[in-house]
């Protein structure tokens, strides 16, 4: 029964979760913590922290973790917990998978239609704004610290930011290599 509820809940989150991982997190909290009490608020806070720290989209990370924890909290075995994480991850992906297939098909077919062209002529500049906003929103104390809280970390963060920006944009360093190098710098410098 809890598996069905888990599936249905994450299907709903996948279907109505517009606006990226963070918007999804608040939906997950509303359903999983407040409504069903499958996990506690402090467990949820931990899950959010780990989802942000580990690789992968935050929506997928949190679905996987919440699925596992909810089933474990309900008193099932670890194997069932793994099944729970599969259920939640599958459910959260399914709606967008179906929708995106339909949209992709439509787009590839009517891409050259003048009206579709017109819509995208408005969307393209907005996407640039979206990207800029994403970068600006991430320039916060959580990612950079502040001169007041931790001057050393702030200075290192700004230097790493500038290095990564210049290296990827002007010297075409592979972004994956850049992430690995900055992770190593963090391990050495802190």
């Amino acid at each position: 029964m809890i598996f069905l509820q888990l599936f249905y809940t994450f299907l709903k989150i996948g279907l109505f979760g517009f606006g990226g991982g963070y918007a999804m997190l608040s939906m997950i909290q509303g359903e999983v913590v407040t409504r069903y009490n499958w996990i506690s608020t402090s467990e949820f806070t931990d899950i959010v922290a780990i989802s942000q720290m580990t690789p992968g989209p935050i929506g997928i990370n949190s679905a996987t973790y919440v699925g596992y924890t909810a089933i474990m909290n309900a008193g099932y075995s670890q194997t069932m917990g793994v099944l729970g994480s599969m259920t939640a991850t599958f459910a959260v992906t399914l709606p967008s998978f179906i929708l995106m297939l339909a949209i992709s098909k439509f787009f590839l077919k009517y891409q050259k239609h003048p009206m579709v062209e017109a819509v995208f002529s408005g969307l393209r500049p907005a996407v640039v704004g979206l990207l800029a906003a994403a970068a600006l929103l991430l320039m916060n104390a959580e990612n950079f610290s502040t001169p007041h809280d931790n001057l050393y970390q702030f200075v290192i963060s700004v230097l790493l930011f500038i290095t990564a920006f210049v290296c990827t944009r002007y010297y075409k360093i592979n972004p994956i290599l850049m992430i690995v190098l900055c992770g190593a710098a963090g391990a050495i410098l802190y």
Partner: protein
Amino acid sequence: MNIYLESFGIFFKIGTFTIGGGYAMIPLIEEEIVNKKKWINKEDFVDLMAIAQSAPGVFAVNMAIFIGYKLRGIKGSIMTTLGTILPSFLIILAIALFFQQFKEYQLVENIFKGIRPAVVALIAAPTFSVAKSSKINRYTIWIPVISALLIWLLGVSPIYIIIIAGIGGYLWGRYKHSKSEQK
């Protein structure tokens, strides 16, 4: 190499290094899929971001679905989706099963302190290359500026920006169309 395995492998690699949310995938897709593999061109890449943002669900997965579909239809999109999801699924599962205290390791914390500002830079950099491929000029520069400010300072959800920009583009297209018919 078999295209299914190849696309799965590349998205597995991209999924592994997408740290800090879906937008972190943009520089990786730009490098691996647009520049290296040339599976989609720069213009389609911009359109794809608009599409992935306007559909519900996980942004990064939405992008993977589109690219997979463009490559090899439904089967292709299944491969790219699995590739994107699997690394995070396996890592989270390993953490949930074996190291619940993962985030308390000082070394892990330090590595991420180094990675986080880099990820922000990796998201900032494509803003400029995308601005170039979406042919922003002095008549259209206000659109990204206003959009970014609305989201950043006023907390407007990106989905509304997408809807308004789409409608705006449509109306502008009709207006230009009717004008050219009058001539």
